[in-house]
C-alpha cells in the first residue's frame, strides 16, 4: 500500500485546488488531484471577473498566456427600477501594474489552463471521478475513497466548492444555510467583437464590468451583472436565498425580465444564448467560516466559505487562489517536519490571517447585514431614477431643483436615509 501513498490528495480541480496542486508539485510533493467533472472547469461557473493580484503573485504576467477574455477598464453601476435606470460610469486605462488589473474569464477554459500548469509541474490530475468519502483513522484523515477504491495520502486538501459534502461528513463544515448564500444564474450571449466594442465603448483587449441594483433581484438582496468577454457577454444575477419564500417571481424569471429591461435589451439585441448556468455563492462572510484545519486535512476556497459579497461585486476567485496557496505552503512545511497533525497544519490559518483574505473578510464582516435591506433594492433605485426623471423631463415652467428632489427623499424617509448612510459607512 505505502508505495501507492501520495504526499497530498486534492479534492476538486477548481481554482483553489489547482493552485494548491501546482505549488505542491513544484515543491516536489507527490500530488494527486481528483475532479468529478470530465475536465477541470467542466462543473464550474462564475460571474466572470478575476482580480489578478493573487494569481499574479504565483504566475507573473499570467494574462499573456492564460485564456483571459478582456481586461476590465470600464466600470458601470446602475440603479434600476422596473423600467428606468441611472448609471455611474468610470473608465480608466489598463493599470500599469498587472497585479492591479482584473479580467473577465470563463471557467471552462481558465480552470483547464491552471490545471495544465499543475500537471506540467508534476501533479497527477484525474478527472471524471467523484470522491465519495474520506479515510479516517484515529481521527486523522488518511486519504480518500472514490469509485470504490481507497487512495492514501499524508494530507488531503478539500477544495470541493460551496457544497462541501466531504467537509460536512468530517464535521468541520456546517451545512450552508440559506442566510449565508445566494443563488447565481447566468447566460453567455454571443455577439461579435465589433458589436461589443461599439455597445460598451471598448477597443482592443479592453472590457466592461456592469453591476445593476434593484429590479434584477426582484427588490431583494442581490443584483445583476454583465461582463464583456471577447465575443460574448456574461449576463446574470444573484439572489439571496433567505428571501425565497417572500418572492413572487422565480429566479429564472428574474433573469428573463432583467434581459428584457429597456436598459439591458439593446445591449444584447441580436445575440444568441449559448449557455445557461447556475451556482450557489457563499456570502455569509466571517459568520460562516468552518473549522479549516484538522489532523491530515485542510479546507480551501468556497468550501471554506472564503467568498465576499462586497456590494458592487462578488469576490471569490482571488480568495480561492490565495487560500489554495496558503494551504499548499502549510502542507510543504508540514512535510519538512514530517508532522501532519492539526497543530502543524495550523500555519495555514495564520497565513490566511496575515494575508488579504482574512483582512478583507474582517473588513466586510458587517456588509452582508447592511446589504440585506430591501430599501437598497426598491426605494433607493426608485429614488435615484425618480430624481433623474424629474430633472430631465421638461414640460412647461420648471420647478426649483430643491422642490424636485425633496419629494423623492421624503418618500424613502429622511431617517432611513440617515440610518442607512451611517450604517453603510460603518460596515465598510
Amino acid at each position, binding site marked *: 500500500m505505502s508505495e501507492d501513498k501520495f504526499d497530498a490528495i486534492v479534492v476538486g480541480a477548481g481554482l483553489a485546488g489547482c493552485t494548491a496542486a501546482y505549488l505542491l508539485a513544484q515543491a516536489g510533493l507527490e500530488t494527486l488531484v481528483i475532479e468529478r467533472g470530465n475536465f477541470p472547469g467542466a*462543473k464550474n461557473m462564475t460571474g466572470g471577473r478575476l482580480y489578478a493580484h493573487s494569481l499574479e503573485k504565483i504566475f507573473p504576467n499570467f494574462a499573456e498566456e492564460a485564456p483571459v477574455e478582456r481586461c476590465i477598464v470600464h466600470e458601470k453601476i446602475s440603479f434600476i427600477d422596473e423600467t428606468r435606470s441611472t448609471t455611474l460610469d468610470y473608465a480608466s486605462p489598463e493599470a500599469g501594474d498587472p497585479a492591479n488589473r482584473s479580467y473577465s474569464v470563463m471557467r471552462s477554459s481558465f480552470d483547464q489552463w491552471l490545471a495544465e500548469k499543475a500537471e506540467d509541474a508534476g501533479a497527477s490530475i484525474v478527472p471524471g471521478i467523484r470522491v465519495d468519502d474520506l479515510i479516517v483513522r484515529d481521527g486523522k484523515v488518511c486519504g480518500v475513497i472514490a469509485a470504490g477504491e481507497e487512495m492514501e495520502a499524508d494530507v488531503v486538501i478539500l477544495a470541493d466548492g460551496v457544497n462541501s*459534502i466531504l467537509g460536512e461528513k468530517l464535521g468541520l463544515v456546517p451545512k450552508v444555510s440559506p442566510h449565508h448564500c445566494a443563488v447565481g444564474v447566468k447566460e*453567455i450571449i454571443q455577439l461579435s467583437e465589433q458589436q461589443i466594442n461599439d455597445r460598451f465603448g471598448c477597443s482592443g483587449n479592453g472590457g466592461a464590468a456592469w453591476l445593476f441594483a434593484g429590479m434584477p433581484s426582484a427588490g431583494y438582496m442581490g443584483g445583476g451583472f454583465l461582463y464583456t468577454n471577447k465575443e460574448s457577454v456574461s449576463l446574470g444575477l444573484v439572489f439571496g*436565498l433567505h428571501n425565497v419564500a417572500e418572492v413572487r417571481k422565480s429566479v429564472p424569471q428574474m433573469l*428573463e425580465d432583467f434581459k428584457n429591461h429597456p436598459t439591458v435589451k439593446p445591449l444584447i439585441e441580436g445575440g444568441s444564448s449559448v449557455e445557461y448556468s447556475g451556482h450557489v455563492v457563499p456570502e455569509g462572510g466571517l459568520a460562516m467560516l468552518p473549522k479549516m484545519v484538522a489532523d491530515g486535512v485542510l479546507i480551501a476556497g468556497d468550501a471554506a466559505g472564503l467568498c465576499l459579497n462586497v456590494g458592487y461585486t462578488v469576490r471569490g476567485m482571488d480568495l480561492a487562489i490565495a487560500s489554495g496557496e496558503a494551504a499548499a505552503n502549510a502542507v510543504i512545511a508540514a512535510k519538512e517536519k514530517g508532522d501532519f497533525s492539526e497543530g502543524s497544519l495550523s500555519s495555514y490559518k495564520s497565513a490566511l490571517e496575515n494575508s488579504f483574505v482574512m483582512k478583507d473578510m474582517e473588513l466586510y464582516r458587517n456588509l452582508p447585514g447592511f446589504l440585506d435591506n430591501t430599501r437598497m433594492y426598491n426605494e433607493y433605485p426608485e429614488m435615484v431614477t425618480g430624481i433623474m426623471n424629474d430633472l430631465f423631463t421638461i414640460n412647461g415652467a420648471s420647478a426649483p431643483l430643491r422642490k424636485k428632489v425633496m419629494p423623492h427623499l421624503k418618500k424613502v424617509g429622511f431617517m432611513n436615509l440617515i440610518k442607512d448612510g451611517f450604517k453603510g459607512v460603518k460596515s465598510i
Partner: protein
Amino acid sequence: MSDAVNVDVKLGVNKFFVDEGNPHIELVENPDPKEFAKLEAACPAGLYKKDESGNIHFDYAGCLECGTCRILCGNTILRKWEYPNGTFGVEYRYG
C-alpha cells in the same frame, strides 16, 4: 417585460450527460407544499414544477448541480442529494 420564461429552451443549449435511471436527487413521497414552493421559485433550472391540476413534478435531468435545493430543503423534502457520479451531469463549455 413579463414574457414567461421558458427554462427548457435555455437548458436545451447546454451539454448534459444524463445518468439514466440513476437520479442524484430524490424527493420524499409527499413533500410539504410550502417547501416545494421554495424550490419552484429558486431552482435555476426550473426542475420543480406544478401542473394545472396541482400535481408536482421533479426531473433530475437538466440539473445544473448548483446546490440550491440542497441548501433550501435538504433536510425537509429531499430524500437524497448527491453530485452525479463522475463524468455524468452538466458540462459547461464556457462557465
